[in-house]
């Protein structure tokens, strides 16, 4: 069952149980839905910008532990990041959960995101982890339609 502990790391279980920034944002500059039709994970993400900087991220919705923890950790990490920094983290995160990028080589940059390296061993769960990031990426790209994993 080591794989299970690799997947459900303490930090992931903690953010699942106590998601950070888990609320609606009234004065959001960008609001975008992320939806995984396969399993029904459904979140709404809110972004507020201060110039080029992401001033605030929040989300609401429901889904599995992996998607919820991913959304929560993402919301905490992106606060105060510039757009291009957020895009860089998007590339890095999607890289480690798909196994394209070795997490060990980017430990400092990844911070808590490194907890998601175990997802690479569970291919069907990759979309759970990436749903919040794809939605955020879509919002940064100016999409205003729902982002779907399918």
């Amino acid at each position: 069952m080591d794989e299970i502990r690799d997947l459900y790391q303490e930090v992931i279980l903690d953010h699942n149980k106590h998601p950070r920034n888990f609320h609606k944002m009234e004065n959001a500059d960008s609001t975008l839905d992320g939806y995984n039709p396969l399993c029904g994970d459904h979140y709404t993400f809110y972004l507020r910008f201060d110039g080029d900087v992401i001033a605030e991220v929040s989300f609401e919705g429901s889904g599995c532990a992996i998607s919820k923890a991913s959304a929560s950790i993402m919301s905490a990490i992106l606060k105060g990041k510039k757009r291009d920094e957020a895009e860089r983290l998007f590339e890095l995160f999607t890289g480690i959960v798909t196994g394209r990028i070795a997490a060990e080589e980017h430990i400092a940059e990844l911070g808590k995101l490194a907890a998601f390296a175990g997802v690479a061993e569970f291919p069907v769960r990759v979309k759970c982890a990436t749903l919040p990031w794809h939605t955020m990426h879509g919002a940064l790209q100016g999409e205003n339609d729902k982002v779907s994993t399918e």
Partner: protein
Amino acid sequence: MSTMWNDKAPVAAAPSAAAFDAWRVRADFPALRQTVRGRPLIYLDNAASTHKPKVVIDTVARFYSEEYSNVHRGVHYLSQLATDLYEDARRTAQQFLNARREEEIVFVRGTTEAINLVAQTFGRSKLGPGDEIIVSAIEHHANIVPWQMICREKGATLRVIPIDEHGELILDAFEPMLSERTKLVSIVHVSNALGTVNPVKEIIEIAHRHGVPVLVDGAQSVQHMPVDVQELDCDFFALSGHKIYGPTGIGVLYGKKALLDDMPPYQGGGDMILSVSFERTVYNDVPFKFEAGTPNIAGAIGLAAALKYFRSLDIAAIAAHENELLEYATRKLEAIDALRIIGTATHKASVISFTLCAVHPHDIGTILDQHGIAVRAGHHCAQPVMQHFGIPATARASFSFYNTMEDVDALAHGIESVLEVFT
């Protein structure tokens, strides 16, 4: 809770229950012998699809090795042999459902295609603006979307029989919904998401009193109970081969001949015509009118082998064994505090949908999988059911006659380990 295998007479826990030896029949299923993630496979996803007995695998292999050819057109030996086997398969399906005539058996890809066929032929020719089709609140998407599509095209309305908190139809609401505008009732026999066995015979009687034909979606029923289409008096009946131990990509649409004769063709092509010219094409008779192109010959022959295999088992004993599994699993799972069973109808097939407090079904599925336990997690293509219960998804364990009490123990143990991870 009991598995209802006949609308009039629910089977009591039959004495033959003890006579049914799940361990013996397991030997017929090669796939059940494997280990998954280092553990013996415990397959509890039978409502999604069942494994195949060796006789089905061998029949398909023999067909491709020794008997294969196209059907219905060659004068040569193999073509005649393949045609005979294919048409024998039709007769096997006819006998299995006790249809009056073999022409009433149309081979399709599965239940989904069967319902689409009826929607696009019967629906297209009968529906007009203001007309209505009635389904229920526990339908699979396959018995919702085809009707939405044709209703939108024709300006017709889809109406829905409501369900209660147990996942049972509120039958009192049904009869008042019927009117001269109602063109068809299309109802699921057994709910894939909840296991509810619907009183289809009663529904058919009520609908017929109002002159409305009824389609029964039998994708989840035929593998659990005997079905006699004449006794039910349903007008259409649909089933999927892969859910009753047969190959994928093959299923059956039963339709009363008078209705099928009256329906326009589904798809155009070879085999569904008698003669073609650019001025005028004459369609073939039923069932060929609905089987354009080279059919799934091996699938039909494999399905026949599956139906014969299934029939060779004592179906009352199967029903009793599956009911024991259901009752035992219900007891074991109810004993877990954080667990809530979704779907508590009086008459259920051996399907248990459940949620675990604060644990998403996908996380349940992933952790059980590490124990070699295969369950389904998600909305089970029945999102309206999930909406009714105010949940996004469930985990679902669905049992076959080849499952054992030990499988239930393993499931309960696996669920405990899910809770350990999440507490």
